[in-house]
């Protein structure tokens, strides 16, 4: 009788722990997913912005050596937005 009572209590505790572990596992999977998506998106966007800024700087240097009205217009169109981001 003693073992039956103890087994019943332990079985209840075990069931509660299993439910808790399932909930925590689902929560952890969702958190990992959000973290990965955020990191991936931010990394991609930052890479594109850095690449564009590098292209802007290189184009500005090229325009100083080989002045071109068309290239100057292109650089000026990006100039205000670039200053706003810094």
């Amino acid at each position, binding site marked *: 009788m003693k*073992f039956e009572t103890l087994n019943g209590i332990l079985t209840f505790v075990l069931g509660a722990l299993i439910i808790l572990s399932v909930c925590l596992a689902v929560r952890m999977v969702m*958190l990992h997913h959000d973290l990965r998506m955020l990191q991936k998106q931010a990394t991609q966007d930052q890479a594109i912005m850095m690449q564009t800024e590098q*292209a802007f700087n290189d184009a500005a240097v090229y325009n100083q050596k080989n002045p071109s009205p068309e290239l100057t217009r292109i650089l000026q169109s990006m100039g205000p937005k670039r200053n706003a981001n810094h």
Partner: protein
Amino acid sequence: MSDTESLSPSRNSDLEWQVAALQRQVFLLVLALVVVSATFVFYLFCESRFVSNDLATIQPQATQIIRTFSLNAQAIQNFRAQLVSYGTTHSGFQPILLKDGLVSPAMPPRQ
């Protein structure tokens, strides 16, 4: 003659001993399973807290970067397209496009 009358007292005590041993074994196994499950739950709880803290730390900066990019995405795309278009008509500018990765090396220069 019934089945119960055929069991000797010694056999009864053996069976009782085996039943008690099985009950103890089941109790110990369930106890061990509870300990293992509690350890696993504790691990999941700690890990989820660490990941939650990491997400809270990274989220503001990443959100800012994503928002900045989304606000200027069209301008960035237009600028890159204009540079590539300028490079197709000015061969001296193409090495810069290749260096910055705006065009692939397989792009043939326009004569």
